[in-house]
């Protein structure tokens, strides 16, 4: 972890090597004011929570948590979102996207590779957004009105029956086919 003083307060940069244990060593005096945290790409949630507890203990405030600043997600890297993506929310990934939660109607998930939803997919999913025609969309339940894979588009019909159970959508001869998923 790097510590820097800025005009507005203390700026901490967490990196991949930080663990809840390593942040414990931070001097409490440093954390008693406004604290800004910059997350490196692989900083863990547990580490951030530990740091937050420390700041509270020191009587300071966690003014802002910034995502990795100018760091662009590397091509092919999987993005994991551990919450429900609600209406108005948008997840973009330069690789695959895994959503642990639902994707509600009015939300969008756009990934250059596969999209996996460990929940119900009700919003728009666009897999293979860069043109990857081998990309697939998998969800525990698909209730979307629209799916996209690479350049292809599938719209749900008026009275489409919903299959209970996981389904997977893939391209076959330029058409999106949605079928029940069998292991």
């Amino acid at each position: 972890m790097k510590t820097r003083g800025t005009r507005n307060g203390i700026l901490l940069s967490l990196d991949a090597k930080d663990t809840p244990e390593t942040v414990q060593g931070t001097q409490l005096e440093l954390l008693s004011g406004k604290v800004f945290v910059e997350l490196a790409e692989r900083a863990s949630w547990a580490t951030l929570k530990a740091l937050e507890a420390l700041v509270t203990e020191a009587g300071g405030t966690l003014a802002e948590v910034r995502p990795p600043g100018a760091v662009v997600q590397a091509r092919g890297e999987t993005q994991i979102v551990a919450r429900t993506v609600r209406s108005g929310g948008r997840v973009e990934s330069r690789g695959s996207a895994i959503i642990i939660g639902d994707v509600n109607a009015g939300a969008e998930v756009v990934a250059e590779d596969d999209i996996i939803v460990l929940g119900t997919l009700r919003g728009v999913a666009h897999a293979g957004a860069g043109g990857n025609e081998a990309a697939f969309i998998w969800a525990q339940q698909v209730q979307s009105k629209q799916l996209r894979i690479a350049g292809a588009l599938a719209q749900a019909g008026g009275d489409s029956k919903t299959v209970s159970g996981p389904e997977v959508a893939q391209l076959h001869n330029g058409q999106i086919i949605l079928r029940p998923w069998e292991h």
Partner: protein
Amino acid sequence: MNAKAIVVTSGKGGVGKTTTTANVGAALAQLGEKVVVIDTDVGLRNLDVVMGLEGRVVYDLIDVFEGRCKLKQALIRDKRVENLHLLAASQTRDKSALSEERMRETVTKLVDEEGFDRILIDSPAGIESGFQTAASAAEGALVVVNPEVSSVRDADRIIGLLEARGITEIKCIINRLRPDMVRRGDMLEVDDVLEILGIKLIGIVPEDEKIIVSTNVGSPISLDKEKSGAGDAFRSIAKRVQGQEIPHSALESKRGLMTYLRRILGIG
């Protein structure tokens, strides 16, 4: 609910935010809490009308924000119930007069200096500055939703915005439910709504003609001694806000338990 300052919001307009604020506020006051209801719908104020206090508004929230009066002067005491107060919105200004900072200051003062137990903040429809200001001072939220697709969609958006603000105590009120329509399959079921929104239910309010009457005469139905579906529902919600365990009425479908089981088992 642990939250003292609770925003009543919905995203979509016309689902019953103001009616809910007035009725839950009145019911909480009747239960003995010192309550203030705040109207943040500057320019389209309604809460004073619904509560029958229109004629008594002298100073409003914007007067407080801009220092033209003391906070105490703007608090209108309801004469029907002890401990019920209204802080009205300004009708002649617009949302640009709102300020998140002033809002937080005002709410802090209401708790620390005026000793209020509960502050219900009636939010305007939409996701813009009016809603943002209303939410800025809240620690908890009551999200009012009608059992219809567009209302659920907007509520979902609102919940996302509330979560982004760090508000975690978010409860759902399903308003204007028509049991006959649900039985016929013409209206979304309670379980469907809750499954999409993923938040806890705090009450179901049936569609009730008496609400329209009570709104027009400016007397919250929850203060009416007479039995009514909506009045009972609002009184139950107030008790649940206080933390009492009141079973939900039979309006919930029988599917409830199975859906719940399926959800915790992660199938379907």
